[in-house]
């Protein structure tokens, strides 16, 4: 099988609820890059990457130029067995993991289709029928966040991520955590996420003010050293996100003792191949995994669901139904949340076929 055509679309995704994070990071309408790899066998594989603006070293309009750069390696290559081809891409153009993640997903889709198996079977097999979801609560007024938490609770959600720091007021963050914690009662998982936006001092003050409660902190500061210091000073468990993006950073976070949980975002690591390696390492390190991506619609959601369902339920903390936060949907057959849980797509491969009408006109077609 050979790759014959690479097509890229940019599709604007609008959040149902504008999403505010620390340091002015906001998701209202953002572009997602959808990639299709066509082959001489007639099979086509799909990938998607949707970088949140100002969040990671990634931007949606960087995907097509990166693919144009990599096209000489991709076109004519055999897509079956993704890691061999991804290795060649890494030598051809180091870095640019986010752009590669869409390619990697499409390669896994093609490989699984060639094998006639659902993608999760190639990733190790299905470990459970459905997976727990978390619900992310935008950083707004504390009472409003508590209301959103109650609404999500009523739909069956039992894991809650409260965004913090958007108003740079640590006492408001304390109130957010207390009110969300109270709103959902004892038992459910509640964690507060600064997305690197807090100083070590303010994160410590916030954490100590809620230390009597069952709360986890997520990525308060920009470096692992700072996150470890906050964990040590507050005694609260810590989830790592932005600072955990490859094998070396996961090992460092583990050594620093600040990785009780970790977000494995497909595009942050560079796709399913790299995320699968991170999964295996985290199984060994004992870090609970949140399998997700930065943002996106049905293609990236399908990919993360396949990876998530291949993980032992004991080690999987949650997954994210990204396509439930935005419109339009690209493929409405991809499962959605039900009673706070979600299943992977049915069918062979990734099990996703975006609706051509919703994709619009491609920005790039390489053949």
């Amino acid at each position, binding site marked *: 099988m050979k790759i014959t055509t690479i097509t890229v679309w940019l599709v604007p995704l609008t959040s149902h609820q504008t999403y505010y994070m620390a340091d*002015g990071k906001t998701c209202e309408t953002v572009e997602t890059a959808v990639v299709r790899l066509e082959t001489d066998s007639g099979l086509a594989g799909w990938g998607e990457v949707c970088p949140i603006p*100002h969040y*990671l*070293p*990634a931007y949606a309009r960087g995907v097509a130029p990166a693919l144009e750069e990599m096209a000489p390696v991709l076109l004519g290559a055999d897509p079956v067995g993704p890691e061999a081809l991804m290795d060649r891409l890494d030598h051809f153009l180091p870095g640019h993991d986010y752009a590669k993640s869409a390619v990697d997903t499409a390669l896994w889709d093609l490989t699984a289709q060639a094998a006639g198996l659902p993608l999760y079977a190639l990733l190790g097999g299905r470990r459970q029928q459905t997976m727990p979801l978390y619900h992310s609560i935008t950083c707004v007024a504390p009472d409003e966040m508590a209301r959103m938490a109650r609404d999500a609770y009523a739909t069956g959600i039992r894991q809650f991520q409260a965004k913090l720091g958007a108003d740079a007021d640590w006492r408001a963050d304390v109130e957010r955590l207390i009110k969300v914690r109270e709103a959902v009662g004892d038992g459910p998982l509640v964690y507060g996420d600064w997305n690197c936006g807090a100083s070590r001092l303010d994160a410590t003050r916030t954490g100590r003010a809620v230390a009597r409660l069952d709360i986890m902190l997520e990525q308060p500061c920009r*470096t692992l*050293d700072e996150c470890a210091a906050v964990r040590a000073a507050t005694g609260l468990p810590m989830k790592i996100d932005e600072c955990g993006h490859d094998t070396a950073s996961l090992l460092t976070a583990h050594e620093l003792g600040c990785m009780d949980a970790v977000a494995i975002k497909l595009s942050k690591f560079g796709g399913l191949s790299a995320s699968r390696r991170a999964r295996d390492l985290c199984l060994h390190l004992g870090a609970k995994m949140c399998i997700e991506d930065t943002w996106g619609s049905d293609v990236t959601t399908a990919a993360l669901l396949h990876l998530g369902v291949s993980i032992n339920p004991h080690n999987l903390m949650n997954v994210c139904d990204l396509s439930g936060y935005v419109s339009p949907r690209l493929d409405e057959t991809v499962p959605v949340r039900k009673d706070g849980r979600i299943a992977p797509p049915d069918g062979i491969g990734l099990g996703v076929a975006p609706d051509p009408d919703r994709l619009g006109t491609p920005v790039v077609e390489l053949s």
Partner: protein
Amino acid sequence: MNELVERAMDLCLPGHLYAKAPVDLACWDIMGKASGLPIADLLGGKRDTGTPAASSVSSGDPDYMMGIINKYREQGYVAHSAKVGGNIEKDIDRIRHIEANRKPGEIILYDVNRAWTRREAGIVMNAVADLGVTFEQPGETLDDIAEIRKVTTSPISVDETLVTLQDACRIARDGIADVFGIKLNRVGGLTRARRMRDVALAHGIQIFVMATGGSVMADTEAAHLAQSVPQEFIQASWSCQDMLTVDVAPGRGCRTENGILTIDDTPGLGCDPDEAILGDPVAVYE
């Protein structure tokens, strides 16, 4: 204003240091022109002595490599970056041969460009330990180099895996290397490179300044940073201009003379390119 621009760019788009570096350089150029000072003075003070220019010697048979070194010697070069990292037995031969022909005062760095595994690095570096030569980037990651460090005694320079100030702090604190190879485009320009320079000086670490490639403008930028470093801390500055067929700023910027790069007191970078030679811009934003 450089650091305000840096912060604004980082908030807008994390990473992409190579694209930010030329913006950073342009800001330093403007600041120098506005203040009437060369960038090296704004970086802390231009030293009187020039900086040795380093050649780049591609890997091959020992005699082939010596042939390249001899050509650069004729131009006055005293610093050379010799590429190794192929077959380890041949690497040992190359290093022994080049060192046997090294002249007093010559600086030769053996650049592995990440090619060795930990095992290979240990074998080669221990086999030539008696020579006291310096190896650049003998492993893939900082973790690899930290382990190589434990089983070898030769001085080490870190190049590809010195990207952030955190990397610099880790290398300095954990004693992973003796030399920082600072490539301006990789670290995001002079604003960030200056911080790494200060970490190096505070820890007795020497500096090798390099452009990642580019015209005389890139060489001149590197030379400004190099000339802000006390002489005893600077190893050399890699110069790309002698490998190129195009000169975008004729008569301006730093030039290699007798193997030494110097900058003059022209305010700013002192290397305005000739726009006719640059040709048509691919983009203009207003």
